[in-house]
């Protein structure tokens, strides 16, 4: 990581002091997301793809599918693989080369959110038990980094999965025929929404900009689908008091409902 352009400490002090009054530099309330912009089908070669903008943060997410042998312990279930790459194209802080920890964590936390929520009906992705199942690949790329890529990545993942069409699989030839039109959707239910709550000083906020994320003491990501929390990840070295943690849970639940409503129209 290139430390050159990290938010100066004195700016951070101002961010924290202002948050103490319940205010943020860009005029949002602490529980407010930035404007969410969605553009679907950004790659014709993907089974599903989407561009998500959260303010100035931007990610591309694509879904590809392939027929594979199932895992031995789940012979009648499809397989999910989620990867994330923080591309150097999106920030001077990211370098070329193998994924570093932040990218690995991002992919893993989104993967768990997708998997544990029961969003994907893996049983219906079985073609022939013990022999052939669908493998879904969800690949997440950052395009411009201005904070909260994780929640943006999850939004991209669920919308790309929702818009995806399963390609035509020729069982005799054992290959996918991309010439035939794909119409069938991936069997899905209530999507998980990822809400990352950040603690700055004694206060919480969601959907941080880069500046806010830089001065965050601790963060905690919740994967919430409907009323159910199905994944959590606390990150960074700061600690959160037990009672404060309960507040964070309430905040995440409330914000997840707002975000869910925001993206409703992209989920059909």
């Amino acid at each position, binding site marked *: 990581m290139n430390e050159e352009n990290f938010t100066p400490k004195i700016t951070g002090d101002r961010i924290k002091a202002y948050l103490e009054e319940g205010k943020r530099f860009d005029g949002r309330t602490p529980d407010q997301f930035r404007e969410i912009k969605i553009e679907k089908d950004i790659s014709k070669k993907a089974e599903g793809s989407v561009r998500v903008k959260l303010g100035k943060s931007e990610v591309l997410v694509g*879904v590809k599918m392939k027929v594979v042998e199932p895992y031995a312990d789940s012979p009648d279930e499809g397989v999910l693989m989620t990867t994330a790459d923080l591309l150097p194209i999106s920030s*001077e802080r990211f370098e070329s080369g193998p994924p570093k920890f932040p990218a690995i964590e991002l992919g893993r936390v989104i993967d768990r959110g997708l998997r544990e929520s029961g969003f994907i009906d893996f049983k219906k992705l079985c073609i022939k038990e013990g022999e052939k199942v669908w493998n879904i*690949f969800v690949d997440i*790329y950052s*395009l411009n980094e*201005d904070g909260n890529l994780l929640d943006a990545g999850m939004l991209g993942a669920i919308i790309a999965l929702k818009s995806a069409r399963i390609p035509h699989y020729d069982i005799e030839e054992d290959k996918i025929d991309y010439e035939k039109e794909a119409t069938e959707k991936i069997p899905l239910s209530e999507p998980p929404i990822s809400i990352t709550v950040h603690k700055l000083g004694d206060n919480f906020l969601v959907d941080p900009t880069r500046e806010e994320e830089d001065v965050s003491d601790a963060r905690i990501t919740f994967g919430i689908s409907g009323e159910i929390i199905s994944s959590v990840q606390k990150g960074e070295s700061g600690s959160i008091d037990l009672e404060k943690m309960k507040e964070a849970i309430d905040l995440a639940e409330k914000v997840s409902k707002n975000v869910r409503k925001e993206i409703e129209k992209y989920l059909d």
Partner: protein
Amino acid sequence: MVQGEKKMSEFKRPDGRKNDELRPIEAKVGIIPNADGSAMYRSGDTVAIAAVYGPKKMHPQHQQDPSKGKLRCTYNMLSFSVSDRIRPGLNRRSTEIGKITEWALDPVLDLSKFPNMVVDVHIHITQADAGTRCAGINAASMALAQAGLPMKDLVTSVAMGKLDRTIVVDLTKEEEDWEEGEGPTDIPLSMTKDGKITHLQLDGKISPSQLKEAIDLSRKACAEVYEIQKKALKEAIEKNE
């Protein structure tokens, strides 16, 4: 030659284009706010994005050149840019194309004022339908200009080709898989406005005289692409006026 021309009149491209006709092009400058320069270039169903960061201090230090700055290009395809998913990360092909791109662009750049520094150019293909390295070079050339670097000219790139015996411009994937007659020959090349070739590659079978013909024909195609690059760069400033 007369015989060749007769052949040409019977020959039809799958998408109905004329032999010297490029696919529809779209270009946009300034697509990545964080970057010092950035651009998108689309040719038909091929889409490339490029971002420039720098000049900045070269790491690792042993690669620093005290006499001038260095250009460093990476090229990669997003996993879902093609039908069969590509594993994320660099491979041999992308490593080679990164270097080819560097060689294609370096001749127009003047980095003498930036000793020990590096200019990073990152290119990604978001959707691929052949000609991706050319689209990447076109996007990168605009991004470098937007980054305000001292530059003698823009670099323009086009994938020439030969299908059976006919020379055409801007091959699609379907054309790259041409099966009839002599099959396909792919000839990606890049040049400056005044006709200095900075990149030339070829895969296939072609006679020396036809290769020369292809090079001659590329001049016109590159001139068309150049106008689009120039327009996109001008629009990026003028839209704010």
